[in-house]
């Protein structure tokens, strides 16, 4: 039996979640790896004294995102038997979204050779380089070609909807020099509907269609190749015309949500993106916190004439009694159908 047991009902947990998270602004920046990180190892040779590796550098598409969003509300939280809980349909509103797409070309060295040598027959200067091409590095930036797309005006009218299955993670955190056991939701599966058609259409249908058209035009101008368009649309999560129809009917999402609940596993590239975002959102605040050293008696200043038992005569000034704290160990969280159960022991 644990020293202390705390149980929190599903309803109370939901109330706390909806008070703590909505309205909080989250800024995040991220970018895909450049060509250097994407280099492919093609061979490796080893002798007793040295190793050598050969890499094939490739040009890679590059993406970056600079965004700011806030949670609007979670429509429901359910505790599951398998030590997880499901957050149903969290609405996220975008305050800023700048997407950058580009190409990162591997760095190439150019020059460093002699363009014109003085003929050997020429006295004194014969055989020397008369014109050398200086060595230079090409394509050193990451990325080398970049097109920023400020989607903020469009996305400000768009509501993104996320459902997630989370487990609970207990971490030892330090805040202002004090250790805490912090209870964090840890998303293990996320279903994201990046452009929630229903909610968005409710707000501004014309803007959505105009947005899709604008992006398509921008992309076509920048990257005429069809595959680039596919990558871009897939990354952003914007629907193609076919999927747009499916999304309007919400067929696609219903099936995905059903699959996610059944498999507890994320599906799709947009979900992976959202999982990262969701992780970042939930990383911010703990749902519950317990100090590692639970202060039972606070530090206290007392007059020495109220106390005794000093090694020498009582000190002249006030005496400070240090705080007494119980060390909390072995915190655990489990879920059953209706309750989150937090248990811990004291270490003494």
């Amino acid at each position, binding site marked *: *039996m*644990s*020293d*202390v*047991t*705390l*149980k*929190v*009902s599903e*309803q*109370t947990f939901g*109330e*706390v979640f909806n*008070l*703590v998270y909505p309205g909080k602004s989250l800024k995040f920046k991220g970018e895909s790896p450049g060509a250097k990180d994407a280099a492919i190892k093609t061979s490796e040779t080893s002798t007793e004294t040295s190793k050598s590796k050969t890499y094939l550098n490739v040009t890679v598409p590059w993406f970056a995102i600079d965004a700011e969003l806030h949670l609007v509300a979670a429509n429901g939280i359910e505790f599951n038997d398998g030590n997880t809980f499901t957050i149903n349909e969290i609405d996220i509103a975008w305050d800023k979204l700048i997407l950058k797409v580009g190409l990162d070309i591997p760095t190439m060295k150019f020059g460093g050779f002699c363009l014109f040598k003085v003929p050997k027959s020429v006295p004194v200067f014969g055989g020397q380089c008369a014109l050398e091409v200086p060595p230079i590095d090409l394509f050193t930036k990451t990325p080398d070609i970049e097109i920023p797309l400020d989607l903020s005006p469009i996305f400000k009218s768009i509501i993104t909807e996320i459902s997630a299955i989370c487990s609970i993670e207990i971490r030892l955190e330090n*805040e202002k020099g004090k250790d*805490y056991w912090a209870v964090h939701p840890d998303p293990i599966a996320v279903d994201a509907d990046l452009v929630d058609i229903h909610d968005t259409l409710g707000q501004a249908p014309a803007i959505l269609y105009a947005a899709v058209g604008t992006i398509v035009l921008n992309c076509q101008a920048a990257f005429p190749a069809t595959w680039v368009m596919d990558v871009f649309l897939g990354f952003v999560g914007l629907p193609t015309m076919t999927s747009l129809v499916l999304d309007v009917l919400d067929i696609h999402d219903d099936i995905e949500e059903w699959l996610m609940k059944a498999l507890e596993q994320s599906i799709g590239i947009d979900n992976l993106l959202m999982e990262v975002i969701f992780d970042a959102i939930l990383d911010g*605040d*703990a*749902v*519950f*916190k317990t100090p590692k050293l639970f202060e*039972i*008696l606070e530090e206290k200043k*007392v007059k*020495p*004439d*109220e*106390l*005794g*038992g*000093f*090694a*020498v005569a009582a*000190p002249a000034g006030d*005496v*400070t*009694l*240090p705080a*007494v704290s*119980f060390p909390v160990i072995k915190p655990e969280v489990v879920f059953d159908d*209706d*309750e989150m159960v937090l248990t811990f*022991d*004291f270490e*003494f």
Partner: protein
Amino acid sequence: MADIYGAITDSAINRAIKFLMRWRPALFNFVAPSQYPTFDGNGYFTGFGERWLTCCSVKWPPGVDHNTFPRYTRQDPLKMPGVVGGGIPFCAQITDAKIDFHPSNTIDLPVALTPPLMNQRFAVWADVSCGVGCPTDALIDALLDAHFYAHSKFKLTPDLFNQMTLDVESLICFSLELFATGRLYTQPQPGPSNPPVTEIRVAVNGVEVQNVRPNGLEDAVECYIRMYIRAYVLPKLVLALEPIIVKALGVTFTPTLTSGLPNNPAIEQNELRVWLDVDVTKTKTSGS
């Protein structure tokens, strides 16, 4: 179903008591020190020195400064008719204590408390070392001749002398085993709040002191201890269900005891249990 449920075991509380005994010994060791006059090199009175006499030695917790860390809480000396001076030095030290929630499994209740422990009750046991100072005949002679001091160059007036606790160098010590049983109850806190804040309080049902003879003296000691517990200790053991602000989350929990349960709070299965309904609100900040 309650919004929040909390429980703590008696084993955890007992380990906490031992932890506190080690780190805040002054909470468990009460001493009225003996006093003696001090004089300068010319024999003039300069003040009182003190002897903090105890029956059981008390260690300092590890790592503290022995010159500034106190081990005892000062008490007023015992006043008795016929005792000249400021009173009798004494000590009362709780050297061990434990609590046992129903069903009882760590404290063997004495017959006077009608074991076994009843449902929803707790038992408390404490080993108490007591000591009382007894002045020597020489000191009594001096006390009776206090005017000697007043008229001497010492300038120790009878008034000053009568403030001084008896000067002894040791205590007459004895040990007591104290048993008590009790329960928890709730009542609304007096005051203007509407609805009233509920308070969880402790009631003591029985007190038994062992190793005291004759029976009349035992009854008198128990009566005094019961009065001390009710008048001094229990009023401090009150848990008011007031709003709890969780700064880290920016929310305020306003708890009320969940109604409709047979016992809430409850003492059962070796745990103290409480079921609460909470009203969760965003904490109002000064600027909002």
